[in-house]
């Protein structure tokens, strides 16, 4: 087991790091970092483990999101097991356009160009894994109630995003906590 020499990120250092991220650090070649707390056993044995766990969790979230979109936004609460409580409202709001406008989707969302930005394990047991990736909806069509393809012609099919997945070490399950468009150079 590696020695746990780093302590919990203090608010100040986390802030500086966050400023660096949002100030335009290029995601092309991120250097993964992880900061396990001194009193916790690390949840992941390596950066590769963290990346795989986060990728699997996001794939599961995406599969359910597509399922709900295929169903025209019906029973959007099905997304709840895959996202944090704070993220749930935004997710439910995202499905509203399907149910409100009588739309449904066909095809599956894909993602690629995944890279680990960092993973952090806090003293209170919270684990967060941050990733960069490209979401790709080019195979997904939007259909109206008569089955007509109404996919917006100006839609951005490939979107660079940065996401955060969180979990309590006790549960071990990573949930989508944030998903933001990447504001730097388009790496997708």
């Amino acid at each position, binding site marked *: 087991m590696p020695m746990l020499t780093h302590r919990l990120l203090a608010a100040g250092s986390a802030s500086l790091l966050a400023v660096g991220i949002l100030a335009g650090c290029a995601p092309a070649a991120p250097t993964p970092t992880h900061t396990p707390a001194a009193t916790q056993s690390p949840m992941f044995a390596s950066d590769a483990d963290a990346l795989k766990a986060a990728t699997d969790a996001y794939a599961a979230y995406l599969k359910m999101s597509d399922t709900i979109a295929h169903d025209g936004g019906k029973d959007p609460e099905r997304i709840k097991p895959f996202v944090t409580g704070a993220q749930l409202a935004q*997710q439910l709001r995202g499905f509203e*356009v*399907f149910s409100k406008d009588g*739309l449904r989707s066909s095809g599956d*969302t894909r993602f690629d160009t995944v890279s680990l930005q960092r993973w952090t394990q806090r003293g209170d047991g919270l684990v967060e894994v941050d990733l960069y990736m490209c979401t790709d909806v080019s195979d997904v069509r939007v259909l109206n109630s008569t089955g007509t393809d109404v996919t917006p012609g100006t839609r951005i099919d490939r979107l660079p995003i940065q996401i955060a997945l969180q979990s309590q070490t006790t549960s071990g399950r990573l949930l989508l906590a944030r998903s*933001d*468009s990447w504001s730097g150079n388009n790496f997708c």
Partner: protein
Amino acid sequence: MVRQQFLLVTVGSVVGLVAAVVAGPSIAIAAGGGCTVAEQIVGQCDPPQAHGSIDGGGVNIGATQEVPGSAPRSGDDAAASDSSSGDSNGTTGSSSFPDAGFVNIAPLWNVITCQAPDPCANPTVRLSDLINFRAPVPTTSMEPNGWAVVGLDANFVAGAAVDVQSGTLLRLPAQVRFTPAGFSWDYGDGAKRTSADGGASWAKRGIPEFSPTPTSHAYLRTGSFTVQIGVSYTAEYRFANQNWQQIPGILNMQAPQFAVVVGDAKTVLVGRDCVANPRGPGC
């Protein structure tokens, strides 16, 4: 009528940004265009629409985005801050008056106004940003340098190239491309012309000195003349890595004026080289 107002003012984009990130999901998250996959599918993740206009010696690119927000929580004051200001080209911003039901966020001043009976519950967040790009000033030169001879062509050259400048707008990349479209020449003695290019030196053209060129000028009298050379640019902008958009109009930039001293010259027959034999015939 009882009117309860909550006025939260945040000054300092860096402080606001730090607080926004530490606070977790909040209004500030939406500033980066955060959206769900479902919203991406229906085209609601598209970046805000930007608009460009020529303003004096530069170009203004502005954008406004309205996104659903969440209610600010206690201690979240700074979380409403947008950090999109600040770049090497002199981003400008100003406070905006809050509209009912909206949270207005401008780069330097962030004002949230909410009214009873539903203070700040699910407001719409309006994000505004403006960035200004200055067009490059053309370079100028002439040969001979600073002087001319009556009746002989002096060659004037202006330099201006395609120039792409970058900045950020609503935390998304914004670029402006200036392309030289034409040059104007005012030789100071009443003669003026326009040309498609900035000219080139005699050497570059491979012609003898004092030869006429498309940008040369032969003064007809002695004196000191002030030369003014300008370049006209067309401008395009690109926002959020989307396609380039043409900005209507032409942008005129003037190079610094410079003086030309025009002298007279006479041709005489001399016996030998006047330098070697200054007292020779004709020297």
